[in-house]
């Protein structure tokens, strides 16, 4: 995931939460694809075949059921963006590729984590949950499952705090992104 030493610049004015943008060495691509058999494998296959590195990948249906959107974060050092985009464009099922500069996009990722707690640690955990606007999905006398959706950089921070506790399982989705409103209206 995005290293924490990336350039920090708050995107939203919020108490105590500085948000981290992806390192400029990453590109955000939103790839609109036809909802056809094997399309994810074609996109993923192209990346490995051409030696482009994927940092994260998420797929979901779009507002139009004929299409899906694949959100990919690409390691910029592994290939020039132009090559990645034009090679992707050659896939017959790829309809449109939008490159989002991290500065021009809102990005969200989801994190799920199950922690083991005791009477001492639960207080601090609850504070963290509050501070990061996370929510509790399940809890029993020893284990707690938390979810948090936010900018990847913020999840990095949350994750590093939670690593102080015994983690039973942790899962992140990879980010999805949309252009900021100012770019949509243009």
């Amino acid at each position, binding site marked *: 995931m995005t290293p924490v030493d990336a350039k920090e610049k708050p995107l939203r004015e919020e108490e105590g939460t500085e948000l981290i943008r992806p390192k400029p060495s990453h590109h955000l691509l939103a790839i609109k*694809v*036809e909802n056809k*058999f*094997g399309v994810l*494998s*074609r996109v993923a*296959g192209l990346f490995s*075949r051409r030696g482009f590195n994927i940092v994260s990948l998420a797929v979901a249906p779009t507002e139009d059921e004929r299409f899906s959107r694949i959100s990919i974060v690409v390691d910029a050092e592994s290939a*020039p963006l*132009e*090559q990645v985009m*034009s*090679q992707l*464009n*050659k*896939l*017959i*099922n*790829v*309809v*449109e590729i939008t490159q989002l500069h991290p500065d021009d996009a809102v990005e969200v990722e989801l994190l799920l984590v199950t922690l083991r707690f005791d009477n001492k640690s639960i207080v601090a955990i609850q504070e963290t949950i509050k501070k990061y606007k996370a929510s509790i999905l399940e809890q029993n006398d020893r284990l707690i499952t938390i979810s948090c959706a936010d900018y990847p950089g913020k999840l990095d921070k949350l994750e590093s705090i939670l690593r102080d506790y015994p983690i039973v399982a942790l899962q992140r989705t990879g980010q999805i992104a949309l252009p900021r409103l100012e770019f949509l209206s243009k």
Partner: protein
Amino acid sequence: MELTGAQSLIKSLEQAGVEVLFGLPGGAILPVYDPLIESSMRHILVRHEQGAGHAAEGYAQVTGKPGVAMVTSGPGATNIVTPLADAFMDSIPLVVISGQVATSAIGTDAFQEVDFTGITQGVTKHNWLVTDPDEIPRIIKEAFHVATTGRPGPVVVDFPKDVANAKTDWNWPDEVDLPGYNPPGPPEPEAVRKALELIYQAERPVVYVGGGVIKANASEALAEFIKLTDFPLVTTLMARGAFPDSDSHHLGMPGMHGSYAAVTAIQKSDLLISLGARFDDRVTGKVSAFAPNAKVIHVDIDPAEIGKVRRPDVPVIADCALAIEAIVAEIKKAAAGKKSVFAAATKTKQAAWMAQVQEWKAMFPFAYDGKGESNYPGPIKPQQVVEELSAAADENTILVTGVGQHQMWASQLWSFAKPRHWVSSGGLGTMGFAVPAAMGAKVGQPTKTVWAVDGDGCFQMTAQELITCSQEQIPVKIAILNNAYLGMVRQWQQMFYEERYSEVYLSADLPDYVKWAESMGCVGFKVSEPSEVAPVIEKANSIYDRPVVVDFRTDSMEKVFPMVPAGASNDDILVHPSLRERLSREQ
């Protein structure tokens, strides 16, 4: 009208204009072979599915039409992966229909099941798994559209057995609906304008012609461009024949085994006009040292080729023919009422450049010991065979090759006159290409003579398709340059591995090529003396009813020159020993 999926497929192939398919049946594709009996299409039963694929490639290269092959599932399908990869590298339009196990059995490791759309993802332009029999006509129409438009390439239609047996209606769609597929057409006027700016200023221009010129049928436009500009040009391995070798503007083939003039002209050029070429490493050598002082105009229909290897100063994303025509039209406009579109001073520099490249061409021909003699003491020089074949050929003769030294000599020494008369495996370098590709070429152009120049190693990989040729009356001619070695590999071991020969010796006498040819229904000749070369070629050329195989016993130790060692700069070109002194004086 109700019909089966298999009938729908056959009808769709007919509707797509297919006249010939190459294939071999088996369990999963059985239902499709039944209605084939009634079809107007000619099916050629190959002896190995690799042969079907290469034959379809040869057919496509000489006709400009898509080649079609049909195979069964599992091993039939995997056997055609090599031709698919070959066609993908060389942008050859191919439609391969593969049988597949029934949709209900997919994913169960059923008998002869392979994930063929998965396997071929990286070596096809696109592929389809048919799951709904009603979609057969649409998918076939799309398959041919994708294979033949834009940058051409191979496609696969994987066809499950239950889909073939299902009942369906047949409706040929009017249009293809592929929202993600929009191949470029004519060039942007702005790109043409920028290209012309560089063209008008060029003092040491070289036109770098690639296979795209052949694919786009742009030879005429190219000829006009050369006539208008007087620029020298080179044709890559994939573009041999795009422009006649006999024309003095033509400097030959560039690259690892290219002519000295072609390689050196590119290196010293100040403008490289790339037309449908892709800056392959066999052409560029060390990329950072390739044409170091040249500005680059890169014309290609595939946007992904732009900047992949070398960043152009002016990219022109367009169909090659339309791009050259647009440039030609602008030059004509600019030339109206003028003596030349070039400034006088520029024209003088261009003339000096032309004189320079002509001098290189004259000083550094393709040399070999015994050149010009037919009575030197044997063994036969392989180059002599190619030169004699070329001299005896009319300009409608099609030349096909395998991969290795013989391929380089064929490309260097054959005198090419026209496009689509040369069929060779370029990007993939597939040994065993020649015999089946020659078969496909002859099927595509039955009235033309088809010669294959093959290696002994290559021949042994796919020779069995000569049985197909005999049975189907496809009289191709094969010249084996039998040097008893995997010669190209031997050359590298000799030059770069201190003559440590590892696993490259084959034997000149094993197999007995004449007997083998005869057993396959061909006429076989063996030639050991330089003086016999021409007479036997004449004999072979007078046989029209059967395939001919000539076993030319050639010099094992002969090497291909010039040579740019792998990864070296093109400036470090090695010429034939007899020209070395001349080269050192030149440098």
